[in-house]
């Protein structure tokens, strides 16, 4: 079994805004593209043009429909990848030390040369965030683009995970969640960011920002408040023209030579 570090210098992770995520899958494919070419074995695809295509993805989007007791049904898009937990059960369950959590930034990684493909870690992860690559027989998971975020061959602004760089709606944020002054920590504080399944005791580093309340239904009071905005200027079309005449006179700069 593998030990977790007592603490990590930083807690690098993602903050994902469920109020903004439109479910476009840009992050899913960008991740697939980067990680097929980079850290560890490529992400393979089985039967890619066949009856049951199945490939390895480190990040997937699930869509959930929520039907409240009162009010209109809603659809929430929920991107999910490794949450880089502080108490990561996938690490402690690993028999070879292949799964580990980095002391410097808290990123949970798989050292593929030690991975025997036993799959215990995927079983231990309550989030289903790990996938065994069928071609290579090693466990794959989000690396938080450890090969991007410090990469001196990339321009500084690009040293973020591929999913963050590509997200068209800007729903994905990256930073140090161990630093309460970081932009991501402040976003979490302002928006009530939450842990996924906190009852599991995994202390995920990644946080989700909840959807803002919808305004599909109008409380009666709101209609009353808005009503003066629509007070009629006249009940008759002819009266409307009379109002127009007066209103035109009242426009700034209006002058009538009569």
């Amino acid at each position, binding site marked *: 079994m593998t030990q977790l570090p007592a603490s990590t210098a930083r807690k690098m992770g993602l903050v994902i805004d469920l109020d903004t995520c439109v479910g476009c899958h840009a992050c899913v494919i960008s991740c697939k593209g980067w990680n097929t070419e980079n850290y560890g074995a490529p992400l393979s695809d089985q039967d890619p043009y066949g009856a049951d295509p199945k490939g390895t993805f480190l990040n997937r989007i699930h869509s959930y429909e929520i039907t409240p007791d009162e009010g209109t049904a809603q659809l929430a898009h929920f991107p999910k990848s490794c949450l880089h937990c502080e108490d990561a059960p996938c690490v402690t369950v690993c028999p070879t030390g292949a799964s580990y959590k980095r002391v410097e930034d808290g990123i949970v990684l798989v050292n593929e040369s030690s991975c025997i493909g036993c799959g215990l870690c995927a079983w231990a992860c309550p989030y289903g965030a790990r996938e065994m690559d069928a071609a290579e027989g090693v466990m794959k998971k989000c690396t938080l683009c450890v090969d991007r975020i410090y990469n001196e061959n990339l321009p500084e602004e690009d040293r973020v995970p591929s999913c963050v*760089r590509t997200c068209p709606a800007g729903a994905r944020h990256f930073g140090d969640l161990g630093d309460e002054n970081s932009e991501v920590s402040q976003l979490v504080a302002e928006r009530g960011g939450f842990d996924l399944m906190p009852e599991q005791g995994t202390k995920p580093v990644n946080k989700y920002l909840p959807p803002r309340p919808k305004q599909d239904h109008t409380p009666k009071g709101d209609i009353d408040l808005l009503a003066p905005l*629509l007070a009629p200027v006249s009940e008759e079309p002819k009266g409307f023209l009379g109002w127009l005449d007066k209103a035109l006179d009242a*426009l700034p700069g209006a002058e009538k030579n009569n």
Partner: protein
Amino acid sequence: MAPVQPVLDTSPKVSDEIRKTTCYMCACRCGINVHMKDGKVAYIEGNRDHPVNRGVLCAKGSAGIMQVNAPSRLRMPLKRVGPRGSGEFEEITWDEALDLAASWLEPVRRDNPEKLAFFTGRDQSQSFTSFWAQGFGTPNYAAHGGFCSVNMAAAGIYTMGGAFWEFGQPDWERTKLFMLFGVAEDHDSNPIKMGLGRLKERGAKVIGVNPIRTGYNAVADEWVGITPGTDGLFILSLVHCLLKAGKIDLHYLAQYTNAPALIDPDTGLLVRDNDGKILVADRAQDGKLTPFDQRGVQPDLSRPDSVMAKIAERYLSDDYAPEAVADRTGIPADRIRKIAAELARTAFDEAIELDQPWTDFRGERHKKMTGRPVSFHSMRGISAHANGFQTCRALHVLQILLGSVEVPGGFRFKPPYPKPPEAHPKPHCKVTPDSPLDGPHLGFVHGPEDLALKPDGTPARIDKAFTWENPMSAHGLMHMVISNAHAGDPYKIDTLFLYMANMSWNSSMNTGGVMEMLTDTDDNGDYVIPHIIYSDAYSSEMVAYADLILPDTTYLERHDCISLLDRPICEAEAAADAIRWPVIEPDRDVRGFQTVLVQLANKLKLPNFTNEDGSAKYTDYADYIVNHQRKPGIGPLAGFRGENGDQSGRGDVNQQQIQKYIDNGGFWVNHIPEEAQFYKPWNTAYQDWAVGMGIYDSPQPYLFNLYVEPMRKFQRAAEGHGDRQPPDHLRAQIIEKLDPLPIWWDPADDNKGDDYPVTALTQRPMAMYHSWGTQNAWLRQIHGMNPLYVPTKIWEENGFAEGDWARVMSPHGEITVPVAHMAALNENTVWTWNAIGKRKGAWALDEKAPEATKGFLLNHLIHELLPAKGDGLRWANSDPVTGQAAWFDLKVRIEKSWAPVEAQPAFPSLSSPVPKGTKTIFDGD
């Protein structure tokens, strides 16, 4: 085990080289960085410098590598050897292919060029393909706008000289209330997502109006689950509320629109002076009639004969009161009032001002720019109905009444828009054997005199665009070409030449019928449509129905220009255009279609491609892009012109132009001066900038058309005035439907809505673009299935359970398909993802692929004609103004079915002209 951290190389080499070009995974045209390793494409990301996407990239864009490696790519020119529709071909050389094409086209051009119908689908090079067709001399040219969103484009241009998408955008940085009506999610893919993200960040409110709550509507703060086809009625009810409360921008209406124009009571035409200028009653001169453009004029809106009075008379009617429209639209009256009140509050109580002086076209200097921070966006959802043109018009009228077009916080045009409708070409259709056409094919008509009719009054074009059936069909009617050609109505053709349009599958109504038309033979056993040439990069369903296939390259293997002459990539703040260039060379014997057209033009010696000495002007498309001049100094690319590449807009040809674009990241941008950023149609600084840029030859200020006078001219003809007269059976339709002020009618009536009470819609998923996505190994793992989504009410009524199938019946046909429950859906609407269903044998997919076994098309339920009304006539299933295909008027009935082996109807498998794909992909190859 104690943690032993391996030493990682956290700075691995990313790639050997980045090549910057333009994406073509949808029509959005983002800038991409293509990372190369060992001469191969390794990874694609967004280009941070690019004006469209500023670094971000959608799923399709990032999956481009799998499109470039797709097994469905065609490999050689193909000549049909089996019967049409079988998919049996032999590979031939390019010389043979071009000889064969020329052997069909030469006699057509010599004797009767109209016997070529050349339609180019989702073409991004229309200024070039139309130039080719013009040189050939056929009037029969258009791209896919007629079956896509011509209503949105035409209504915008006729009303306000520009439209949504590539013509304009919301002022994302300043708008406070954004309303989104029925959107195809590739229009405009990344910019809309970026904009929504920015609105969320700024705390602006988003209202989504759509029967289906997915995607953008899922994140909208407020969702209006409207009944399909009733958007126009809802919008006009908002107009009713705003007018009634006087919440309209009077200064804006008086100064910048034709609201103060006077309507001649006898003709319904606008009162003009001898120079043709619109006259207004000037309040500064005691009501004296004065040309609208005079300095100091204060146009009166309150005259009873003004356009404004006509608007008040019509929309103040109780017919448009929220209570009167609530049932039909499915939106409670209170909700309509609340949205109207929010629009009013945001536009007027929360108005913004920029400290930016500007000068209007009348010579008045303004100290500030006033803004109405409400904005709108819309696309196919409201336009693909028979009432779509008038609905789009209604939306623009709402925007204009609020004074929210081309102002801070509102909707902004992108160059080359704004552009008055009169500045566009008119349609041309005069055919002369062995000669070019007399002008551009497509354009904007301004009265019966501009229709594309032959001297005997019959349609000049095979698609019957610009005829009395649909006079203002600015993009043509690609969806009518095959059925008209098959029927020989208005005439027979010899060769059908198509590019990038899957007309035997997801791009046609009545798909099964179209397959029969394409394969039908006459009494001699000859095909009714004698020759079909098709160009596509991939093994699509349409390939099987052609006699000659000209295989195109993928988008990373070709030259292209995203031109200001065409559908550019400008932003509201800047003019921009872009190129594609071969970042890899094809590994197959394929050629860019545009280069093939140059080669065909040279073979046929088309005059516009040939020098006076008989030599060819251009060797290939890249040569054309650099050296073609539409007018002196104006070419396909506006950037890096002049000998030294330092001129923008206008300038001499620069032989280094393409290299300059490559060096600049694949695009060119020229920013609009600060003073010219808003009020562009009336802003002298903008007009002068646009002239300098070559967008106009002279300043073109104009008024927005709340009242569209050309529509009144068609009505007048239908009332019996003038020489050019419609056939009698169309008079009533023209008088009723070509109303110069927006109207609404219920298309359900013509689609047997009483017997078929449910509307069936399609949406395009964000991760797919029409039929292209399915061949992509990564994207098909996201959307490999398309159940019919059924709302709770219909789900429960039928006792559906997960895994069930349903029979879906329309007046035209029937399909049997898998169903899935969805609660966030209008209760009388079902829907599915567009173009996931595939025919067996196409796209190099396995025949057991779910797309081919469970996937389906709604197209089988839709006919190009409406159900018979019993009047002895068959009416088109399209908008009577523009001819736009009314896909979204489809009405159906639904009932539970036994589960069939596969979705019905099922068609025989096509022989695949390409081998099947590999069983495993290891590293993107």
